[in-house]
């Protein structure tokens, strides 16, 4: 049953808030500066607010409820101790402009996290400022732009693979670059012949995800790096898929000049239903001067924020970083340590390969080779045989208690279902998921309408998205 809006609940005069009595004289603002329109906010008591949002939470599916094989999103377990640590008043109560001398705990944590992430990725320096992956991309690509400006070179173009995340071309455009796509080859990697043709002295960078969005490692990464660097370009690393290789290989060693990470993917901080995340950026030596300000440094009297950097791209946000997100990632790395991270990556890859192996008979596997932490199936066979599409299979999985995989991405695979189990899933959990998908493949043949009408167990059926976009209703009158 649908929950009413909070605005439709309560009664005049109710409130879920208390304040001490005013202990100073009362003043007023001049009429010309005062709000004229009445403020129409809910009037509800605390029990009503709590019940409302608790009931809303029950309409939501979180990772703590079940398997969440959402490809490219790395929905790994979010440790509870990290939430407790992040809620300590000694951290939540610190103002970002508090004197550095009295915020040494926060600064030390950030400094050490920068160091750890640099070590894990093989980069020379890190900034923790960006608030999300795409924000990290923006930061990184602005540094690439600043680098060429400093060299006095005009390079107006950026190459992205046709399998890239949408944020890559969108970021390049936000930095003023023209975007050109490079095709993928038959093995799912960058087509070297096509790249060779595209890579010219007007090209600033290529943005790569490695393993790529098909879950495949770019086997020719060293040749790509040599080609791009040979013609004066930069290699940008989208860290969305770092979980596959942490502890096993480092983007810095592959030749990447600038990278971003997603702490809310690889480093176990929760996604929050769409944020907050954090997208730290790492750079090779030659890009260090362009890092955004402030930079956390270690000085003679402790940890400090360095603002005096003449070649910096400037600020990409207010204050320092999404501190408590960084804190959770730091706690995660301390819990796992080197062997733990390496084991987590290996388990993620093993889980994905196991699922791929067990599912490839029932579903088309467009790139049949060893995958990394995720793989992409296609529902093309089901579509041709019974008209069942990827979305129908995804929605039917909800009836079996699962969050669906990523659908229709990457764009180069028709009817794509991108599955990323992560290391957090047990073998029996994987087996149950396989059974569900095999059963659904049977259902697709025997009773396609069952899938087309799925999900059946949820509070709502499929929404009319066309109406939502045609006649937008995005707030209550």
């Amino acid at each position, binding site marked *: 049953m649908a929950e009413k809006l909070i605005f439709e609940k309560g009664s005049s005069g109710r409130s879920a808030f208390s304040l001490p009595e005013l202990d100073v004289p009362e*003043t007023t603002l001049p009429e010309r500066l005062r709000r004229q329109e009445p403020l129409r906010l809910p009037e509800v008591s605390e029990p009503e607010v709590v019940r409302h949002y608790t009931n809303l939470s029950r309409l939501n599916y979180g990772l703590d409820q079940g398997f969440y094989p959402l490809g490219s999103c790395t929905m790994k377990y979010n440790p509870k101790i990290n939430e407790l640590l992040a*809620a300590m008043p000694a951290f939540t109560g610190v103002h970002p*402009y508090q004197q550095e001398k009295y915020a040494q705990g926060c600064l030390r944590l950030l400094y050490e996290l920068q160091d750890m992430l640099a070590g894990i990725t093989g980069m020379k320096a890190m900034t923790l400022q960006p608030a999300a992956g795409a924000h990290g991309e923006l930061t990184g690509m602005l540094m690439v732009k600043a680098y060429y400006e400093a060299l006095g070179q005009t390079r107006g173009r950026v190459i992205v693979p046709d399998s890239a995340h949408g944020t890559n071309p969108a970021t390049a455009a936000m930095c003023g670059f023209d975007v050109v796509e490079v095709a993928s080859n038959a093995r799912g990697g960058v087509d070297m012949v096509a790249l060779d043709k595209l890579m010219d002295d007007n090209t600033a960078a290529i943005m790569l995800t490695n393993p790529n969005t098909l879950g495949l490692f770019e086997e020719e990464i060293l040749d790509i790096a040599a080609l791009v660097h040979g013609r004066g370009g930069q290699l940008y690393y989208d860290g969305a898929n770092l979980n596959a290789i942490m502890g096993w290989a480092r983007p810095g060693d592959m030749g990447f000049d600038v990278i971003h990470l997603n702490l809310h993917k690889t480093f176990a901080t929760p*996604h929050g239903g769409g944020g*907050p995340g954090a997208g730290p950026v790492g750079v090779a030596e030659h890009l260090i001067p362009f890092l955004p300000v402030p930079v956390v440094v270690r000085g003679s009297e402790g940890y400090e924020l360095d603002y005096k950097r003449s070649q910096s791209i400037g600020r990409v946000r207010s204050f320092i970083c999404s501190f*408590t997100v960084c804190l959770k990632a730091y706690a995660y*790395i301390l819990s796992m*340590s080197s062997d733990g991270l390496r084991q987590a990556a290996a388990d993620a890859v093993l889980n994905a390969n196991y699922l791929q192996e067990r599912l490839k008979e029932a579903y088309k596997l467009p790139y049949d080779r060893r995958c990394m932490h995720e793989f992409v199936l296609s529902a093309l066979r089901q579509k041709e045989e019974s008209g069942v599409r990827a979305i129908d299979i995804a929605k039917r999985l909800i009836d079996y208690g699962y969050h669906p995989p990523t659908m229709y991405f990457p764009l180069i695979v028709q009817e794509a279902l991108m599955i990323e189990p992560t290391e957090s899933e047990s073998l029996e959990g994987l087996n149950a998921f396989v059974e569900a998908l095999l059963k659904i493949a049977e259902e697709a043949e025997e009773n396609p309408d069952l899938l087309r009408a799925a999900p059946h167990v949820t509070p709502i059926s499929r929404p009319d998205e066309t109406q939502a976009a045609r006649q937008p209703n995005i707030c209550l009158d």
Partner: protein
Amino acid sequence: MRYLPVTPEDRAEMLSRLGLDEVEQLYADIPGELRLKQGPHLPPAQSETELERHFAELADANRKQICFMGGGAYDHYIPAHIGAILGRSEFYTAYTPYQPEISQGMLQSIYEYQTAICRLTGLEVSNASMYDGAGALAEAALMACDITGRGRVAVSAGVHPEYRQTLATYLHGQGLELQVLPLQNGHIDLQRALAATDDELAALVVQTPNFFGLLEEDIPALREKLSEHKALLIISSDPISLGICRTPAEWGADIAAGEGQPLGLSLSFGGPYLGWLACRSKYLRRMPGRIVGATVDHDGRSCYVLTLQAREQHIRRQRASSNICSNEALMALAATIYLASLGPQGLSRVAGQCLDKAVYACEKLSTLPGCSRTFSGPFFREFALTLPGDAEEAFSWMAEHGIAGGLPLGRFYPGMKREMLFCVTEKRSRKEIDMLSEVLAQWLRS
């Protein structure tokens, strides 16, 4: 390892199914010279007990202070039940609500958030959140350039200096120009702002209350001139102030954007915070970021979905209105609960107390020997004070005496070496304000 359910036996079974002997073979696609023999150098793995001990040590290296600092991050009271609801893992461990059938909780809360932001600002449409106040304002400026097809944005020097720096970074990316407009008595200089308004201007960005806490008064004249030249007005507001202050819509703003941290988010050394962005409905399809819309399901039941996605990066790629993907959904939920909990009276009372207590503090501090208010005019929650000596020295003195603030303004405005920006929220008691005054008086005597 307590987070890894796969056992050595499981691994062996899975490897055998794959026809492999050892895990290393899974990494065969990585060129040999790139493959590491061991993981990175890190401290030994810590148990929960050790983690708690380590964090207690870090916590001890911070010092608890009574906060009289604002400058874009504010120490307001956060009702306990907000944390309790945010702790529901159905919310915080979910991904972006791509699957509406199992995400109605988050989607409805975002719809409620959008409604609350519209009602707070008086504007017609809001998106589902941005990273922070600085980013929201920068995206608003890009949006204005896109709407007008013009390449110059003018910003008042009274806008938060870090927001201006962020604006500069974002605009530079696309080769757009940022013009900073000077101040007069801490307020926007009307004549200079009018002079900057021409047919090439995309938008004027004004903040009220501005960085000094001052309420801008000359917006109507600016609005008129901007309309003559078909340029947009972007206002950055503090959401608490909107409990009592004239709204962006009432000032005639086309777009409003700002920081949502005061609405129930902790200071947390600067983040995660919440950028909010609202505008007039005719610009809806030019907005960046996620938007939730109401619709019906196939059985006619009302429900919510992510909508107007044709603007977004995953559909439109390099032609998207922004590259933003993950935003601050959980922070938006906190803000929604905060606004719902306070209600109209609660928000107006909180805003009123901020006003009253800041006025009390200002009167008190400006009677100290050699101290005076830097600017004149009505202000909200924050005020600048000119000291007879160096503000950085005073800042250190206050910190040593357990007080954070005021903020030395010379950090942002090089000429203001003797100025401090004080902030007083509803959380500060008269006793604390008197103590602030006493500590400052001691410094003056020292």
